[in-house]
């Protein structure tokens, strides 16, 4: 159906309901998918949505937490805002985990919640929760709308704020009367003040940085999610290739640099690679780009990188000097920062320094990797499953993980050929993220293979979203690494609590039957010999499917920096 002229250019004086104003605002801001769940206080909005089905796809999740994670998955693939819709009270509070997750991982979300009518605010009305109060510490911005004429300008502000500078979640709470009352729709735009979001570092700072780079003998790049957010993968590649500086990635920076590139130095942090962790403390220069020196990356910060000068590029002023004092802080977007530095540096190579990385990699390979990838006996190991998946998809898939050992196995063993393949809950470490986030990612990128790699524990936190995946026929390929344990917690209990396994064993349902009950074809694999065949079944089947991989029950992820230890105390076993 072609939209009418009135729909394209509405009469300026025409009064429409607040709910319809919201629809027009969503369309105007380029929203084509919303993830949501209806209820009393948001019903006028759902009624308006009914008339906008041709322009806005609504995905009915099975729990509002799923809406936020799906919106995160969608946002991480597209770089645009993910949108989640929920009713007041329990609908709104169910969004909380996803909102907190999005804040930690700088994911742009616009969450729209219904609220009781203005006259009932503060009276403990049915399903009234002060969601603005609840979400103050976990949003970039939030606002309660109580009249229809506020909706368009507030939505414009919400989208602008969610995306500007360092992205993050916003909540717009709309009272029921505001959804029902009428007002004139006016196109709105909002430009956040420059002060909060944009900065141009001083030329002297760039020059000082370039000088440090020219003097360095043992430099290393530490790259985080800021490079993915700024879509600066190409600029990173150019900078690294020009300078010959090895590139280490944080967990959330994964895939920003191709895994097979000769300058790739591996992953930083607690379960990262041996070489980049050890060499952080030998480097004489660290160039940190779009990363925030998370405690899982630095280990004990008192002993962190004491020999190095540090250059830090970050769009968020508050991140510079927050945990680690730096020598040059360049407050800017990763792309602009890398471009400006690339112009100021000359070609170089660090053959001896790179030898150190190669030698330590060999140690890690001998002690850990070879056994993980090619075990001679025992059950299937997560690492070999990831390796086979990586080979079968040629490193081209989007991997969406949950949280735990399987997440670290994916991070360590999937070899990203494309520079946008990693989606995971890093900052908050939210179990239950994987399945709904994969749903959102697959809706955003129908042409890509999307693998949801989850543990048996985390899967059961949001497995009701199999219903959504089936209903939407979203071709997510789900891989459950079933070890009948909350594996990562069990590993800590084994290593740091004398193997006292306190409530980490899981008696699981039959995952294959469960999946089939949702109408999603499924297979189980436990034999090494059947692994490739099962993977190729999954990749070739049309639509969603699920593989339950029965893996070794008590495997541990190594290397590991024990909690509280320094990066150079990383253990190989």
């Amino acid at each position, binding site marked *: 159906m072609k939209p009418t002229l009135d729909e394209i250019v509405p009469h300026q004086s025409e009064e429409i309901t607040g709910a319809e104003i919201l629809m027009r605002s969503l369309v105007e801001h380029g929203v084509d998918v919303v993830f949501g769940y209806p209820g009393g206080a948001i019903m006028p909005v759902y009624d308006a949505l009914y008339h906008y089905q041709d322009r806005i796809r609504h995905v009915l999740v099975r729990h509002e937490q799923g809406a936020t994670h799906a919106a995160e998955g969608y946002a991480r693939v597209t770089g645009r805002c993910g949108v989640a819709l929920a009713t007041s009270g329990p609908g709104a509070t169910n969004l909380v985990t996803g909102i907190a997750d999005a804040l930690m991982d700088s994911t742009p979300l616009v969450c729209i919640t219904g609220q009781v009518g203005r006259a009932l605010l503060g009276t403990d009305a049915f399903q009234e929760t002060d969601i603005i109060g609840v979400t*103050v510490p976990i949003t970039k911005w*939030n606002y309660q709308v109580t009249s229809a004429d506020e909706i368009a300008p507030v939505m414009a502000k919400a989208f602008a704020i969610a995306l500007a500078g360092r992205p993050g979640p916003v909540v717009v709470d709309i009272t029921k009367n505001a959804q029902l009352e009428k007002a004139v729709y006016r196109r709105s735009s909002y430009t956040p003040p420059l002060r909060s979001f*944009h900065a141009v570092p001083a030329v002297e700072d760039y020059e000082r940085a370039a000088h440090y780079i020219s003097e360095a003998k043992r430099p290393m790049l530490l790259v985080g999610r800021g490079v993915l957010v700024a879509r600066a993968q190409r600029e990173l590649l150019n900078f690294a290739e020009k300078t010959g500086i090895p590139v280490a990635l944080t967990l959330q920076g994964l895939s920003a640099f191709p895994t097979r590139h000769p300058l790739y130095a591996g992953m930083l942090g607690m379960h990262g690679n041996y070489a980049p962790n050890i060499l952080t403390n030998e480097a004489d220069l660290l160039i940190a780009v779009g990363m925030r020196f998370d405690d899982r990356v630095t280990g004990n910060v008192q002993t962190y990188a004491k020999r190095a000068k540090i250059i830090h590029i970050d769009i*968020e002023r508050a991140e510079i000097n927050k945990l680690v004092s730096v020598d040059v802080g360049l407050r800017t977007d990763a792309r602009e920062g890398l471009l400006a530095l690339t112009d100021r540096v000359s070609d170089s190579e660090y053959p001896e320094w790179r030898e150190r990385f190669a030698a330590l990699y060999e140690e890690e390979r001998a002690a850990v990797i070879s056994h993980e990838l090619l075990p001679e006996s025992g059950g299937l190991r997560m690492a070999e499953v990831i390796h086979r998946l990586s080979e079968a998809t040629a490193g081209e898939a989007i991997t969406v993980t949950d949280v735990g050992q399987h997440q670290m196995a994916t991070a360590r063993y999937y070899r990203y050929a494309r520079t946008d393949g990693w989606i995971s809950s890093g900052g908050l470490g939210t179990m239950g993220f994987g399945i709904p986030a994969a749903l959102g990612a697959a809706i955003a990128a129908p042409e890509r293979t999307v693998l949801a790699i989850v543990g048996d524990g985390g899967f059961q936190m949001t497995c009701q979203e199999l219903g959504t995946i089936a209903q939407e026929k979203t071709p997510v390929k789900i891989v459950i690494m079933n070890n009948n344990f909350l594996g990562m917690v069990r590993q800590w209990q084994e290593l740091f609590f004398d193997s006292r396994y306190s409530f980490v064993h899981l008696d699981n349902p039959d995952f294959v039957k469960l999946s089939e009950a949702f109408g999603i074809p499924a297979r189980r694999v436990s034999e090494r010999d059947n692994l490739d065949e099962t993977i190729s079944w999954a990749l070739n089947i049309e639509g969603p499917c699920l593989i339950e991989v029965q893996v070794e029950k008590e495997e541990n992820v190594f290397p590991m920096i024990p909690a509280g230890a320094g990066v150079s105390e990383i253990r190989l076993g």
Partner: protein
Amino acid sequence: MSASVCLTVYSDNNPGLLHRVTAVFTRRKMNIESLTVSDTELAGVSRYTIVIRSDSDAAGKIAEQIRKIIEVHEVVVGEEEAMVSREVALVKLPRSCSAGIAHVVSTHGLVLVSEGDSVVIFEKTGSVEEVSDALFALRPFGIIEFARSGRISMAALAERWSGPSNDTFSG
């Protein structure tokens, strides 16, 4: 190490912002010694005067966190010595005490602001120490109740924050 530090926050005048500003402190388990909010010479701009005990490094980091709040325009961190601060106190005393109080009233510059049948109320304006001294001097007269405003502060320098930037985000 730890001294009184005054943060002056300039923000839009929005409901809910106070919660967001104070949440920055609560989350870090920092005690606010005094907080006042007022309007300013700039239309629509509020001014928060927040006094905390902190070393300057931690205060600088707190200021950065407050700057992240969308409606906050600027945060200025002032060391106590560089600031002029004033506080107001109201003190209620029994009327019967008035006899011997004249001396205290004149040495501390108290102003009589209310005179009832049985009670009187004095106002004291001054630096935090002056207000404390006045209250101390009044104790023997049987203070019935007192209220202190919390301080407002201003940098002694000529420069001041010049108002919200008109430049806008371009990326």
